[in-house]
């Protein structure tokens, strides 16, 4: 965690990932600065999840390079410096919410710090769910626990792969608001993948726009909508303009033939 101000925390250089005959990522380069909140948006099959998995060291590159804090992602994994939140909550059904939150630290070989974990759950509005099992919680609450778990790991880089993808519309924005809150109060760097353009604009400092076949970056947009942003921000003209711009880029780059994955 020898991070200097202004340094790129995430550095992706000409990353290519090929699955058999599918070019999931074609020479993608991306740099994310310390404390930055970067969102990645694009259609299904554009490689946005592959990009995030590569940064997390869960996917080996076919060509190119990924560095986190200047080293390969495996070093950040070993240092417990990567907090990953997946689309499905991946809570363990035999553990309570609290045990799930502390378990990731135990897996990383750290002190579970139950007291702090409890405080975090309470702060996230999950005070009543501390000792509940995942089956007793709603999908939104489970995903909230998963996010608290990633925070509790203490990683300075958070990788979030469509974490609200399985939630209903209203819950999504509650969750987005709470992620923004906890990000503002920390110096965490966030890479956040979504297929929702409004979500990408609401959350991000920058939006990376991707297209498929082959998976590539087609635009990088700095979000000009001022912070703090909340649900009402989405009704402002500035917000609507930025969403429309990104949607236009997506539409221009849409492949005409139907993708086999869709």
């Amino acid at each position: 965690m020898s991070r200097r101000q202004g340094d790129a925390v995430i550095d992706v250089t000409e990353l290519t990932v090929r699955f058999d005959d599918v070019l999931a990522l074609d020479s993608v380069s991306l740099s994310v600065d310390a404390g930055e909140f970067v969102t990645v948006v694009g259609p299904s099959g554009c490689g946005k999840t592959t990009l995030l998995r590569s940064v997390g060291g869960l996917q080996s590159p076919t060509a190119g390079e990924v560095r986190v804090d200047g080293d390969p992602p495996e070093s950040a994994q070993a240092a417990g410096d990567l907090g990953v939140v997946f689309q499905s909550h991946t809570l363990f059904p035999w553990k309570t919410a609290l045990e799930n939150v502390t378990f990731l630290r135990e897996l990383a070989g750290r002190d579970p710090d139950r007291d702090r974990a409890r405080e975090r759950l309470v702060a996230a509005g999950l005070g009543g769910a501390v000792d509940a099992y995942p089956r007793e919680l709603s999908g939104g609450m489970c995903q909230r626990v998963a996010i608290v778990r990633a925070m509790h790991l203490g990683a300075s880089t958070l990788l979030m792969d469509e974490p609200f993808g399985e939630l209903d519309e209203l819950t999504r924005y509650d969750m987005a608001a709470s992620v923004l809150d906890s990000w503002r109060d920390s110096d965490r760097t966030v890479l956040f993948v979504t297929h929702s353009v409004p979500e990408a604009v609401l959350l991000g400092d920058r939006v990376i726009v991707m297209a498929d076949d082959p998976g590539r970056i087609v635009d990088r947009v700095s979000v000009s909508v001022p912070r703090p942003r909340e649900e009402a921000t989405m009704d402002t003209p500035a917000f609507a303009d930025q969403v429309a711009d990104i949607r236009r880029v997506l539409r221009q780059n849409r492949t005409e033939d139907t993708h086999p994955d869709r």
Partner: protein
Amino acid sequence: MTAGRLPEWAYPAVTLVGAVVLWAGFVSLFDVPAYLLPHPLAVGRRLAGDPGLYADAAVATTVKVLVGGAAGSLAGFVLGVAVGELPPLWRAVSPYLIAARVLPVVAIAPLLLIYFGTGFATGIAFVALMTLFPMAVSTAAGFRQTPEAALDLAASVDAPRHRVLLSIRLPYAVPDVVGGLRQAATLAVVGSVLAEWFVADSGLGYLILVAAENVRPDVLLAALSVVFLVGFSLYGAVGLLGSRLRRAVA
């Protein structure tokens, strides 16, 4: 209406009583000779007349079931974990693990007699072989049940392999391991009685063999009912243990 209020055990109990009553009625009504099918009361008198004989035989059979079953299940579990953890090993041995279920273990019995002699060890080895394969296959299947995302989560913090095995993969494997144990429990009783036929030294299987040779269906049926009791108790015990284990990881 009142049927809905009966306790769970009452349903099979009614079946049992009904079957015995049918049996008794059939024998009395058609005047079936006792050397073909004795009256249930005659079988009951056999059991009550020499309880020591049946108790000793039941103990001998149960010991084979428990020792052989435990050894076979444990070996099967270890083999299952090994092939579950090491995909190349799984690819190398899985065809044979599955083929071993087709091969009747009885066919190996003559070999066991040569290697282990006509004693206790042969029975144990036979029961162990009967239980090993289903346990290994179920355990290996269980270790393939771990969700990819759970493994990704563990990889994201570079979790040590033994922690992943014990804290993540093992709990996810429990339902399949329990399924394997249930199969093993049933097969251990079958294997134990079979072993007593070809080793012919002790136990309920031996008693059944002798009764058949002497055309004593009353003794045979008495021994058979004890086999049923042993098997049923064991299956029940494993079932209880299994549901406890499953609840712990559900």
